[in-house]
């Protein structure tokens, strides 16, 4: 019991640590913009720095990964191999061709195929183990990631001038139900719900709570705070988004300008986003580029068809047949086994 309460304390510390980190960031933006009026710092310098760290950070990290070779061909196969022509092979779960691998990777990246398999095992009296389907994590994760993508792309209306038509189309689609004015974006609702679920399950499921680190809660709280400030700015405490776009265009056209009179809420939102993308290359968020490089998924199950080359394949000590025969020659001869040397 004592240990258990210690573990609970650990969870509380992790949650509080991440939550307070987010509040400190928010307070920092409020102080920086509202009190000290460092608008140029928060509106221009920090965004440029964050974008640079994000892009270079990820590229450098991927290069670091890429410098280590893939020595062995180790796909985790999840279906029938291609062997005899009359046995139907599973082209996506156990792909033997590049096309199949691309299909498998697309299913994984776009639809979280492996998470879709998720089950929940329970031990009943008997003992009897029961495995139930458990798709909530898959659903929550999928909704969350797709919402992020839609929201990110939607923001291109601030980043680009003139606005590309696909952005406008996406925006219309996202506001399809035309609820309220400004029109409610479905993605705003979905991302909030998904984040709340993902936070909830981290705390509610004892197993997940036990494995969760501060660095697991922090991105969830951070992204939630970004979503919430964004939602506040659109539906509740509106800011002058024409000026916001002027600021954004200033950044992307390298003519930075900080228009007067954009509410502090915007700077909080921007600062949180900058924090997120700065944090990205140094954290588990690297799963975004990482998923493309995972050798158990991105290799074809053709290990016996095509030789995989290991660049550092190194010589090892082997016990040669000659050494073997030298040791056992008499016994071999006595039992009638053929030998090389009499």
């Amino acid at each position, binding site marked *: 019991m004592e240990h258990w309460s210690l573990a609970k304390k650990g969870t509380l510390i992790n949650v509080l640590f991440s939550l307070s980190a987010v509040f400190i960031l928010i307070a920092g933006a409020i102080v920086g913009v509202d009190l000290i009026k460092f608008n140029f710092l928060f509106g221009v310098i920090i965004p440029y720095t964050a974008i640079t760290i994000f892009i270079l950070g990820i590229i450098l990290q991927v290069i670091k990964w890429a410098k280590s070779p893939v020595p*062995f*061909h180790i796909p985790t196969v999840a279906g029938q191999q291609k062997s005899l022509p009359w046995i139907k092979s599973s082209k996506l779960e156990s792909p033997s061709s590049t096309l199949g691998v691309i299909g498998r990777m697309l299913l994984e990246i776009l639809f979280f195929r492996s998470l879709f398999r998720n089950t929940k095992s329970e031990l009943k009296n008997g003992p009897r183990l029961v495995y139930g389907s458990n798709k909530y994590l898959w659903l929550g994760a999928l909704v969350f990631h797709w919402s992020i993508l839609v929201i990110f792309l939607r923001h291109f209306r601030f980043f680009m001038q003139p606005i590309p038509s696909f952005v406008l189309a996406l925006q219309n689609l996202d506001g399809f139900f035309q609820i309220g004015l400004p029109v409610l974006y479905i993605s705003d609702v979905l991302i909030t719900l998904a984040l709340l679920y993902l936070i909830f399950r981290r705390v509610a499921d*004892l197993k997940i709570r036990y*494995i969760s680190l501060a660095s697991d809660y922090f991105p969830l709280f951070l992204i939630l705070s970004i979503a919430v400030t964004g939602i506040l700015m659109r539906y509740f405490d509106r800011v002058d988004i024409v000026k916001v776009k002027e600021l954004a265009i200033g950044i992307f056209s390298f003519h930075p300008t900080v228009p007067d009179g954009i509410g502090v809420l915007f700077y909080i939102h921007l600062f949180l986003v900058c924090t997120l993308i700065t944090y990205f290359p140094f954290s588990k968020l690297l799963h975004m580029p990482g*998923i493309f490089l995972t050798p158990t998924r991105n290799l074809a199950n053709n290990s016996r068809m095509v*030789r995989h080359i290991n660049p550092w394949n190194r010589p*090892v000590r082997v016990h040669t047949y000659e050494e073997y025969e030298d040791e056992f020659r008499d016994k071999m001869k006595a039992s009638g086994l053929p030998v090389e040397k009499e």
Partner: protein
Amino acid sequence: MAEKKLKPEELAGSIDYKPKQKDWLDPSVEFKHGVFNYGGSPKSVEYLQQPNPRKWQPTDPDWQLPENWKQIILEGLKDRLDRFRSLRIFMDICVRCGACADKCHFFIGSGDPKNMPVLRAELLRSIYRNDFTLAGKLFGKFSGSRELTIDVLKEWFYYFFQCTQCRRCSVFCPYGIDTAEITLLVRELLNLVGVNIDWIITPVANSFRTGNHLGIQPHGFKDSIDFAVDELESITGVRVEAPINKKGAEILFITPSADYFGTPHYYTLLGYLALFHEIGLDYTWSSYASEGGNFGSFVSHDLMKSLNAKMYAEAKRLGVKWIIGGECGHMWRVVHQYMDTLNGPADFLEVPVSPITGTRFENTKSTKMVHICEFTADLIKNNKIKLDKSRNDHRSITYHDPCNIARGLGLIEEPRYLIKNSCNNFFEMPDNTIKEQTFCCGSGAGLGTDENLEMRMRGGLPRANAVKYVKEKYGVNFLGCICAIDKATLPPLMDYWVGGVDVGGVHELVGNALIMKGEKERTTDLRGEPLAGDEKQNV
């Protein structure tokens, strides 16, 4: 120091999935008898020229490590990060979503939170973060970092020898993070300071010297093959040839040594002998490469390569055209995913073509080694052998997919095709426990020792439970499998959790059903047990 053995119901009652330990960063573990394996014998370690041979046990307070053990491990980790992209990626991208948590048979059977694959990997990741990442340096404990201490090393030993490298978690992981890869690399690190287990390192030494795990010398090998030939004759009335080290044979046949020295593996051997004779295969056994299994693959990539090298070397010496491999799990993972890379290219061999059916095994055109189930399935499909299914009527069969076969090769339908053509009564276990979702026997990757029995029974619970289900539902009394470790360790598992279920190979079933030219009327199966009809007559 014999400790009380838990009864099945006591063991099941002790499982609780609520984590009870304090913070997992605390590395302390208790080495209780029944849940760990004994340390490697100095003789074997020395013979293999591996580091730090000494007499030691995990329960010793002092593990007699080299003075600079920490430096060795950290440098070893750095070296492996530079050589294995898999390791770098798996260290960096886990989001701790927990999808793997209840997929591990050891977690399901023990409830120990550090048996959740995510935490097993975190045991290493915490050290990686501490010494190799910015986040670890900036945020310390909050980033889940901790320093490598002797307690961490002992914890590694405890938990990385409670993983059978079955890769079930990897199927469910959204990034395919492969705990088997992490486990193998940590075992490599441990081996650098002489921390390994005897049940692995001694078979490796034996295999290195004599060609097989059991240390059987060439004449002993020949004796047991000859004995099997005699035994087969007494059952079938047919005298078969079993050539050994025959130069110029068309095919080299390599199977795990347990097949000719263990029970129930032995009945599978009888099946092979009968089959090869019946189709008139020009093949040979090898006493030098008399082991399919590769316990080296449970310690390090280098030892895996050392042992595996014998297969191609012997194929070359004997001048065969290609190789058939027998029923084995991890052997096939090595053959399928590693052999060609490690010891190829096998340009002295030919692309395998079945001399009986003319089928070209395109799927093996580079490695040139065909799985016996692929080979036999092709024979049956082409009507080259006659099978009397009723000779297996005394069996109600279910099939256990070996982990490495299902998730390493994807060889899923071939053995089922063999069973369905050799038996009338075949029943699948529930979907979540077969094919790519198959559960490990709980004793793979070198953990199948008697001293580790409690952990084996825990880890085997999910598999046993699924067998129990089909036993109660369909009256299953025979668990078929194509893995030597399964054949050795599933029988005690069945006795413990299920009862009344025999374990055997698929080629034993094929051998039972195989109608041989000139055979006498069979009254027993290859085990000498009466056939269904005869049983009735006897009553």
